[in-house]
């Protein structure tokens, strides 16, 4: 048993500082993003979630330019973008998607400029790679308390608005008739989504962060017909993929090309995708009609 364990988990895995940080951060990110992801898919707002994530690149690159921590860059830009989406209006799906697309384009243009400056002024392309694709094993331990705190607050918000959010995600008019303040609940949800996306950007990069938002939720929705179970299922999938991703990345140091670890993000995203495919296969058999 311990022989097998040693073969899978390379020596020094659990005692490694970067690994400990990566496990803590990825756990917080997995739980938060997959929970928000379930609501995002139910509400049909995956495009909004995807855009918030991509816009994170602007914040991350901007923060690096002025020497601030990337988490704050991701956070500030996500909240600003979520506020803009809320202002455009949640009722008009078409108008919202068009406005989101326009803002996304402009924001990515800015990100191109910031990333160019980042790499030329600081003479390194590593930071660009980190912002776009993440590098979980290089996260500063100093960010961990902020990550855990932010994750806990955002999860708390979702727990508080759980029922009103669920009904207004099914149908806004139905919820409004029951006295649910639909716009307020929608704003609280977008704020929590912004936090989730910012954490996800930090962990696996701005480009890949949607994978953790939508993937586990989409997989879980294939397997269960209860909202609560979908959230738990998505969390388990996200957590398993994240931790296994960290482990495989650590192990891959001894894989070819020898002496270079494969990116954690690659493993996480690939594992999530595999879970989604498997869930689709299983789910398509269990349908009522």
């Amino acid at each position, binding site marked *: 048993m311990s022989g097998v364990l040693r073969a899978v988990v390379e020596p020094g895995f659990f005692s490694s500082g970067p690994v400990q940080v990566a496990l803590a951060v990825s756990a917080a990110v997995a739980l938060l993003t997959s929970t928000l992801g379930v609501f995002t898919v139910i509400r049909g707002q995956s495009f909004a979630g995807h855009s918030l994530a991509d816009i994170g690149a602007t914040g991350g690159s901007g923060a690096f330019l002025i020497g601030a921590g990337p988490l704050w860059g991701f956070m500030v830009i996500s909240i600003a973008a979520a506020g803009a989406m809320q202002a455009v209006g949640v009722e008009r799906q078409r108008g919202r998607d068009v406005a989101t697309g326009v803002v996304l384009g402009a924001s990515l243009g800015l990100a191109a400029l910031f990333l160019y400056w980042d790499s030329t002024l600081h003479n390194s392309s590593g930071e660009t790679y980190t912002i776009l694709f993440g590098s979980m094993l290089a996260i500063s331990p100093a960010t961990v308390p902020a990550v855990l705190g932010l994750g806990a607050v955002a999860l708390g918000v979702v727990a508080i608005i759980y029922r009103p959010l669920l*009904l207004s995600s099914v149908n806004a008019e*139905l919820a409004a008739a029951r*006295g649910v303040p639909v716009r307020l609940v929608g704003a609280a949800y977008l704020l929590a989504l912004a936090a989730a996306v910012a954490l996800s950007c930090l962990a696996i990069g701005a480009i890949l962060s949607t994978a953790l938002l939508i993937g586990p939720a989409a997989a879980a929705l294939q397997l269960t017909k209860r909202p609560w179970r979908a959230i738990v299922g998505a969390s388990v999938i996200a957590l398993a993929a994240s931790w296994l991703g960290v482990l495989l990345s650590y192990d891959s140091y001894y894989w070819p090309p020898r002496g270079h670890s494969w990116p954690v993000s690659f493993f996480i995203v690939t594992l999530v995708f595999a879970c989604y495919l498997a869930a689709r296969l299983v789910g398509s058999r269990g349908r009522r009609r």
Partner: protein
Amino acid sequence: MGLDAAPGRAGELLAVSGVSVTLGGREILTDVSFTIAPGEFVGLIGSNGAGKTTLLRVILGLQSPNAGSVLVAGKPRSRRNPMIGYVPQKFELDADMPLRARDLVALGIDAHRYGVPRPSRARRERVSAMLRAVDAESFADARIGELSGGEQQRVLIAHALIQQPQLLLLDEPLANLDLRSEQEVVALLHRLAREQQIAVLISAHDVNPLLPVMDRVVYLAGGRAAVGTTDEVVRADVLSKLYGHHVDVLRIHGRVIVVAGPGGERGADLTLAHGDEDASLELEG
């Protein structure tokens, strides 16, 4: 006709008086008044765009009227009035949505509450009893997005009724239903209204499915309302006055067909709205 108004009269569950609504410069409702007594079954009839949804939203407190008042059991209406249950217009439900019929009915109990729900035996049994009452037990554990239109309507009715309202508002619940589901939903509503003394205000563009069960009708056209029993309202003279031009009311085999008379410029609209396919099919056969 006029059984309307005198707001606040004893024994009235709902009193709508002098309600006018203007949206985007267009007058949707003009001086609409009617009352509903406890347990009464009232049809809200009108073509698309006649203002049926707007009127229901005013009663629910989701739309403020420019003039007039709405009293529910003698008190001004408020948002989240547990005395009113609501079944909105048909909306798309994704087949992947992780929500069983049972879960949607349970949300009818406490969707307005904050915090994570605590499951309890009493809560589960209350939901099961409600599902039984609307004959929805057989599909209670299916995802709502996978149910047929008629099944979804039953679940939405259960969602609205579980808080035991005294007035149930339904917005076009018969739209897009096949003839059999339509009859089943009407029979269900009629039974619930009688057994539980729930007043029903149900909107429809066709008066015929509701003819056997309606106590009274609120007929909307051009933002104005005619109120009374079917015999009092669905008549050529009354509807001609309401529409502002001549219409004929034909009664054949217990069914009513409203058609535009000669020369009416808006006649084409009218025929489309009321020359419903079911009626003509049945007449041919």
